[in-house]
């Protein structure tokens, strides 16, 4: 189901939170001209937008980002990523330094 950008981001945030203990979250982006799949009309004149989908294997989210909303969307998206991808390893060099201090 297509959602507007802010709703999508809220739901994405919740999805990341719900999958902290166990599970993965996939976020897909691709270019789309929003053309109906089986239509024979010529839609090539339509401008392209960025379709963003997210899933955790159970729930699906999707939204379409247009050029003018891009900066705002990207900023919020980056904030979400930075806030939630915190189980990645810190630099090894840093860890070694900490060990030395102790």
């Amino acid at each position: 189901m297509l959602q507007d950008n802010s709703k999508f981001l809220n739901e994405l945030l919740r999805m990341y939170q719900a999958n902290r203990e166990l599970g993965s979250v996939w976020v897909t982006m691709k270019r789309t001209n929003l053309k109906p799949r089986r239509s024979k009309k010529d839609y090539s004149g339509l401008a392209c937008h960025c379709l963003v989908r997210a899933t955790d294997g159970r729930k699906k989210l999707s939204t379409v980002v247009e050029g003018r909303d891009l900066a705002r969307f990207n900023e919020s998206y980056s904030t979400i990523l930075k806030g939630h991808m915190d189980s990645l390893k810190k630099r090894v060099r840093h860890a070694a330094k900490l060990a030395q201090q102790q």
Partner: protein
Amino acid sequence: MIVENWDSFYQQAVDLYRNNPLKTRFVTKYRHCDGKLVLKVTDDSTCLQYKTDQQADLKKVEKLNRVFFELMATGQAPAGASEQDHFPASNACSYNDQA
């Protein structure tokens, strides 16, 4: 295909997209419990993957996100992330050919 080197992944990913903009998708998979992040770019015939568990890679991922958003929504690479930063001049002409 798994690409270990970030720069080569970045370059091949953008290349793949430019060859087939309407078919190429960019997937980010994050698994918190294992602390793993996988990036995938595919047009259903070629598949490029980059795997990481390093926090430091997040910055690069962010940049790639921005490039792809920008490419997909406006059709142009962002002004800030000019290709010259990433691609040496020798590669520039091949991009023009494909565009």
